[in-house]
């Protein structure tokens, strides 16, 4: 297999006496969708924060294309090609939809110490942004204030922003949360189409989506990866059954019928 | 510089530090618990001085004056909290700065209407007009020693109240973590009003103490307000212990600086100190919040 694009080794982050992530190893290869699942509070978001630089691990390293980026500031990592979305919708609500996305295009088109031309008239910002909006199905909404969009569409704006950064690695923190079934299906299709040019790390509670999209699944429980492998293997892994879903037989049923949210158990 | 001057100046510095502590203890708690910037804290200091001076004139006694002025200031503080500040807790800091800045304008003008624009004089308390010989050859005004003592007593009392009583514990918990106190089922509104009244009383008391040695005048609250803000920023917002350490530090730096440094640099010294502290410790010396 090719070298990992993104490689986390031994990432440990302490919150007081609690290890939110405890020696997590995780690799992400080009062209793969790697799903990270686990009960709430398992440390999934904390891990993403360490990958993007919003938190610095107390121990361990993060490498991107072989380069150690453990201590690199957030914006530098973003420029290297790491983009993320957030668990809670995190867009610029005071801006229009197109402005949100062009802001991300602008970030990767050189410095912004440009004071004269009106940003709204710059074709090189507008066109790529429109292209991404078309991809997520929001082209007709481009002039609307972002705050006026439905919750599901706001999440799509957030994903469009991440895509507009032209990243190699996309870290998606529960992209489907709070979306209606229709929007969710559309988005799953979009994500599916991304694997050609991107590596995706997908944190998601919707097991349907996880098992249909993921090439590989890692299970994080109490800050530790307890299993990692192909979806079929994870489905049959007894440790996962026990730790993640509680009791044995019930759990098998649960994984097969696929709960909408894997938040039911608190081991 | 000779030793006796240094001793006297250090005492003056500690005394200014005591004043600043009385001012900052209330303000830092209000800051920490209610997340409120209250620039009008200096107005309470000013009002304390005016009330005490007026009651002293009416009763002919400094102590009686203070005894009457203290509840009056607390009352004004509570009125302010209930009428205006309570509505500002949910607003951002900018709104709070503006509204309390507006309150300064209001109180300055109010004082000018009620007491007139000229400075007001407050007599030294009976029996404390002289000086005391601390060491052979070193004399120090008795009233200033009394301020030191009074400040010390209040500081100790406050320490006991904050550290050893149930209400004090709630206040401390609130300063470190606001949500937690709400989760404990405490009547937050009442706690806020209480803390604000306490802060008002302390600020007013500082004003009363300062009255006889400084002139009682409009705007007297502003210069000490800025020093107080510097103190709580250096100490760490919400930390009473930090406020105490920083108050003494600032008091001594300011006073001793005036003797040892050229005047312009002396006035700038505490701000340089603050900028330096924030440069290395952006949360102050004793960050209270976790």
């Amino acid at each position, binding site marked *: 297999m090719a070298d990992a694009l993104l490689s986390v080794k031994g990432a440990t982050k302490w919150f007081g006496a609690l290890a939110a992530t405890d020696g997590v190893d995780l690799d992400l290869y080009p062209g793969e969708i790697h799903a990270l699942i686990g009960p709430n509070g398992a440390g999934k978001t904390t891990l993403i924060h360490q990958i*993007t630089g919003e938190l610095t691990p107390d121990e361990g390293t993060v490498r991107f294309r072989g380069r150690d980026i453990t201590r690199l500031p957030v*914006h*530098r990592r*973003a420029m290297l090609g790491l*983009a*993320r979305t957030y668990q809670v919708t995190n*867009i*610029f609500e005071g*801006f*229009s939809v197109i402005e949100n996305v*062009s*802001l991300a295009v*602008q*970030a990767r088109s050189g410095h*912004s*110490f440009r*004071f*004269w031309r*009106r*940003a709204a008239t*710059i074709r090189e*910002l507008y066109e790529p942004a429109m292209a991404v909006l078309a991809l997520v199905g929001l082209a007709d909404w481009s002039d609307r*204030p972002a705050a006026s969009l439905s919750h599901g569409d706001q999440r799509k704006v957030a994903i469009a*922003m*991440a895509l507009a950064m032209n990243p190699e690695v996309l870290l998606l923190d529960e992209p489907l949360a709070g979306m209606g079934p229709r929007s969710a299906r559309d988005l799953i299709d979009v994500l599916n189409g991304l694997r050609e040019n991107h590596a995706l790390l997908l944190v998601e509670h919707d097991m349907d989506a996880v098992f249909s999209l993921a090439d590989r699944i890692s299970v994080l429980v109490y800050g530790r990866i307890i299993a990692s492998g192909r979806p079929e293997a994870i489905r049959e892994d007894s440790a996962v059954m026990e730790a993640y879903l509680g009791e044995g037989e019930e759990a098998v049923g649960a994984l097969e019928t696929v709960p909408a949210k894997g938040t039911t158990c608190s081991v | 510089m000779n030793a006796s001057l240094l001793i006297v100046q250090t005492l003056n510095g500690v005394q200014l530090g005591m004043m600043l502590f009385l001012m900052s203890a209330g303000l830092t708690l209000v*800051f920490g618990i209610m997340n409120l*910037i209250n620039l009008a804290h200096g107005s309470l200091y000013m009002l304390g001085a005016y009330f005490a001076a007026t009651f002293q004139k009416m009763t002919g006694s400094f102590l009686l004056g203070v005894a009457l002025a203290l509840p009056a200031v607390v009352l004004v503080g509570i009125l302010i909290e209930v009428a*205006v500040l309570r*509505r*500002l807790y949910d*607003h951002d*800091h900018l709104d709070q*700065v*503006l*509204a309390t*800045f*507006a*309150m*300064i*304008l209001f*109180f*300055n003008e109010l004082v*000018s*209407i009620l007491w007139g624009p000229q400075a007001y004089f407050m007599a030294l308390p009976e029996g404390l007009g002289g000086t005391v010989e601390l060491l052979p050859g070193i004399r120090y005004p008795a009233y200033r020693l009394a301020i030191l003592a009074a400040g010390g007593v209040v500081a100790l009392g406050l320490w006991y109240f904050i550290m050893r009583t149930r209400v004090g514990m709630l206040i401390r918990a609130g300063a470190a973590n606001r949500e937690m106190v709400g989760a404990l089922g405490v009547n937050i509104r009442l706690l806020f009003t209480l803390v604000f009244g306490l802060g008002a009383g302390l600020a007013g008391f500082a004003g009363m103490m300062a009255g006889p040695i400084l002139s009682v005048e409009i705007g007297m609250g*502003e210069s000490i307000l*800025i020093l107080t803000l*510097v103190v709580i*920023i250096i100490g760490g*917002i919400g930390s009473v212990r930090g406020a105490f350490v920083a108050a003494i530090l600032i008091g001594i730096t300011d006073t001793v600086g005036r003797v040892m440094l*050229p*005047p*312009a*640099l002396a*006035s*700038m010294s505490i*701000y340089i100190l*603050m*900028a330096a502290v*924030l*440069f290395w410790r952006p949360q102050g010396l004793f960050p209270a919040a976790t």
Partner: protein
Amino acid sequence: MKGDFRFGKRHGAFLFTALLLAAIPFMGEPFYVRLASRILIYGLCALSLDLILGYGGMVSLGHAAFLGVGAYTTGILFHNGVQSVWIVWPAAVGMSGAAALVIGAISLRTAGVYFIMITLAFAQMIFYFCAGLEAYGGDDGMAMWSRNTFGGGLDLDSPVRLYYIILGALVVAFYLSRRLVDSRFGRVIRGIRENEGRMRSIGYPTFQYKLVCFVISGAAAGFAGVLLANLNGYISPALIHWTRSGEILVMVILGGMGTLIGPILGAACLLLAEEILSGFTQHWMIFLGPLLILVVLFGRGGLVGLATRGRYRG
């Protein structure tokens, strides 16, 4: 086309206001010219504050410091025999920009309350520094008995000529601010105000952008200081008093922050109110205080917000 129409209306209003202001000297009342000059200068200063406050989300309580640096540079150069506009103005703007660079580089490491307080502290530092300049009047400040000159016999000693210079400066500053706010830089600054963390995560080194914005704002305020020194013919530490910073902040909020016209309207309102109310009572602040509190509690968006309430502004 509706959009074009509004665009035109806006330009029309701008032109109309500028012409109205240009007509003030024809009233033949030196008092009005002086008052209008003062309003426009503070309008410029408030506008410069709004760039960091309303657009950049940086609550500075020390903006008068830059006004002061500009004015003091003008005064100090005057007392050393330098009156040429071509030297004094760039020097004053450069000095206040440099001050903003140093203050910003340290202050912008902090956020929230700490930022408010550290900007206040720096302004106090500059206040005491200027008050300590014994050679230039110390606490009392210094007089400047003739104004800057352009050379070739063209000076600013005529109040009307100075007024037109001030008006021109404000119009230019307004236009430049418009460009800045709509530019790529302006978009980044507005993005930072809205959500700084998100800006970082899409790849912007936000500190650099905030710092540059802070420097531009400080330099512009310094230029207002140059004009104020020329208008007053007098420069004292009172210019840098922290209540002055508070007043400039009030102007921005009163008029409507995050708009370009708001700060200028706010300056006009505050200074006119002062002028008119103080004619009735010397205690006019007793009304201003509660009024401001009401504006803060209920008047979101200031005067501009009042005029455009309910309409979406892009």
